[in-house]
């Protein structure tokens, strides 16, 4: 009897404790019901107040962000900037910025926005529209467009990015081939090379097809490269078209016949880069950062054997999805004057150049793409410029998270062979019509 009661109590307590933690854990996330504060009734922001503020951005892997902040602080006595380093993961960065806007964190001064967050951050009043005297002269047009929402500029572009086609120059030269401009040419080149090399490990082509933001990027490029659109010029979704179907079904076919390795359905940027560096791919779609790795990493087996070309198209010219970041001023920042000064400072040609040299992120100032120092270190700069100039943005939407998930649902199902491409796109069109109005 004395044993019975405690045993039962332990059971009940254990049961209840676990149950409670569920609710309590979610209360933390859901409890913050403070209004996000829309901007519709906001008074004009004060961009003169000087004082200490913080710069919020992802992990500083090169160490150059701190350098730039130190240089700025040395010449700006009225207010210092400190670096608030966020995780490497973009979703976590976004979440922290959204949450700190909800609690109206006055210290969050300048935030580094991914290009796809502009609509959400602007509409939900997380960032402030730029004052009229801020100039975007000399900046690449797609990057400025990406920072614009409802004809208002919400930040200054800081870095840009476009997709590139990495290819094995040694193999193409060996078989007398030129870098392909279309998927058909690429397939023909692959067939010729694999027939000659007889290397079962050598795959043809891969991009990023795991179910994450990279799939949205690659799907958009396939659709645009086939002459289709996701969202038309009128701002209405228009993805259930023969062109878009052609784009998606090309990727599906390439998966089916093995020109894209089966494993690529689980690949993100790093998996593909590793495969390319280990000589397992002839062609690879990736961002600019791969160049340095493939050229100088210890485990790279293709040093000096690869080169970069513009992305191939499916029926038309290749079109990249636009990447990159925009620096914006948080709506609830207390010292917006210092924040604005910092923003202007990091947009200067000198800061842009030092950042590109240190991080290999592409600059947003067009003039830097012909800078001799940069071209010496990154010989693909002119190709990158063309990629960015012709790049198309991913759909602009306040609920971008829902839009990108809808795109990923459609593309992933089709690539896995669970749905037909045209059916997948019709479902996507219906879904996008409810999300983008």
């Amino acid at each position, binding site marked *: *009897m004395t044993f019975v009661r405690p045993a039962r109590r332990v059971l*009940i307590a254990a049961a209840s404790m676990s149950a*409670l933690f569920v609710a309590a854990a979610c209360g933390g996330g*859901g409890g913050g019901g403070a209004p996000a504060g829309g901007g519709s009734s906001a008074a004009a922001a004060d961009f003169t107040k000087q004082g200490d503020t913080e710069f919020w951005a992802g992990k500083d892997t090169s160490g150059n962000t701190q350098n730039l902040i130190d240089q700025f602080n040395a010449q700006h006595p009225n207010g210092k900037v400190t670096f608030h380093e966020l995780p490497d993961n973009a979703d976590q960065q976004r979440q922290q910025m959204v949450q700190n806007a909800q609690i109206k964190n006055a210290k969050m001064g300048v935030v580094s926005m991914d290009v796809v967050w502009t609509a959400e951050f602007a509409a939900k009043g997380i960032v402030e529209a730029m004052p009229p005297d801020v100039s975007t002269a000399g900046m690449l047009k797609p990057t400025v467009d990406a920072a614009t929402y409802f004809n208002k500029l919400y930040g200054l572009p800081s870095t840009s990015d476009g997709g590139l086609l990495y290819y094995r120059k040694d193999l193409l030269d060996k078989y007398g081939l030129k870098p392909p401009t279309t998927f058909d040419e690429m397939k023909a080149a692959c067939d010729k090379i694999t027939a000659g090399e007889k290397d079962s490990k050598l795959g043809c082509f891969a991009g990023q097809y795991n179910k*994450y933001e990279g799939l949205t990027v690659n799907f958009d490029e396939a659709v645009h490269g086939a002459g289709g659109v996701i969202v038309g010029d009128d701002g209405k979704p228009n993805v259930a078209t023969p062109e878009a179907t052609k784009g998606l079904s090309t990727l599906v076919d390439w998966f089916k016949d093995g020109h894209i390795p089966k494993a690529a359905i*689980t690949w993100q940027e790093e998996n593909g880069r590793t495969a390319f560096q280990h000589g397992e791919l002839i062609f690879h779609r990736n961002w600019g950062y791969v160049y340095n790795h493939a050229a100088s990493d210890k485990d790279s087996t293709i040093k000096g054997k690869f080169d970069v070309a513009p992305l191939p198209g499916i029926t038309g010219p290749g079109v990249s999805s636009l990447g990159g970041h925009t620096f914006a001023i948080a709506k609830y920042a207390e010292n917006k004057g210092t924040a604005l000064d910092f923003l202007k400072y990091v947009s200067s040609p000198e800061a842009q150049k030092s950042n590109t040299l240190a991080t290999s992120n592409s600059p947003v100032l067009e003039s830097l793409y012909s800078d001799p120092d940069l071209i010496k270190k990154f010989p693909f700069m002119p190709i990158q410029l063309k990629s960015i100039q012709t790049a198309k943005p991913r759909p602009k939407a306040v609920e971008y998270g829902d839009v990108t998930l809808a795109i990923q649902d459609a593309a992933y199902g089709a690539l896995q062979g669970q749905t037909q491409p045209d059916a997948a796109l019709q479902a996507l069109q219906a879904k996008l019509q409810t999300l983008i109005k």
Partner: protein
Amino acid sequence: MATATAEPRSLPATGADGHKHKKNALSDGQGRLAWILLAPTLIIIAVVAGIPVILSFWESFHQTNSGVDPTTGLVAGGSKFVGLQNFTDIFAGANPVTGSYGTMDRFWNAFLNTTFITIVCVLLETVIGVAMALIMAKAFRGRGLVRAGILVPWAIPTIVSALMWKLIFDSSGIMNRILGREILWLADSGASFWAIVIADTWKTAPFIGLLTLAGLQTIPAEVYEAAKVDGATTWQQFVRITLPMVKPALVVAVLFRTLDTLRMFDLPYGMIGAGKYRVETLSVFAYQEASQSRYGPAAAYAIVLFLYVLLVAFLFVRVLGAEVIGDADVQKKKKKKGERPPEEARVEAVMGEAIGGAH
């Protein structure tokens, strides 16, 4: 109450009339002291558990305003009271996705994933955990090493083991090399489900093993000796002696694991990734909704999960727990005296213990 305030300094009564004091515990002059001593604990529980739970319930009756102003493009912000709409929306089926069980609402897909992952994982973990405990209980050379080795997985944080298994289950990872074939574990396929099961079993079977070992060590050796004298086989000893005697400890361990697995988040999210409907659990779904600023629905899903966990826990206590106390004596006495509490009172007791047991 009047007596309590009127005679705060009255001397504590002697043990002679202790019976009387039990009936009127608040007025014996110690009630206030008890409250004072308990206050810090109660306040901490209220702050870290009570308030978040209440806020979570409150949040689940609200929705964030999401309408976009067509001229400025801005969202009004704030939230509005919607009553039970977040809960009724679960049954509206407005968000169909295709997972392992055909096309259905994302909530129910996550609900089924959660349920099936829990059933499969806990079954495997129990079998393997008991086996581990039997091994750990034996006296042999290097027993300390084996015990420590078995417990290593339990000591690794789940999110770390999720990333570790992600490498193992990579398309060119160790698992595929051992199997000699290319299984796409991380591609939101049927294999993803088993990847989760394997990783979870690996990590938490030692937990069941540990608690079972504690139970094993309370079984006196004489029982086995007597069984041997009577000519019982090893299997008979296991089924007739070990299992019944270790059951109280094992039931607690299994209950813990069940409730924990129902809340699984790290493994699917860290290893397979978000938006993979074949392994999306309720916790992951609620998290995803919250990260889309839909706090109301997210809170509603979390509360449904909370009730689900509570229900499972209740069933455990009723079905398995009843056997723990399952000697006829107790039952008879209760029936005679008519002390058996009505069902509602029992539920209340569980709820009450929820707050008491949390910390």
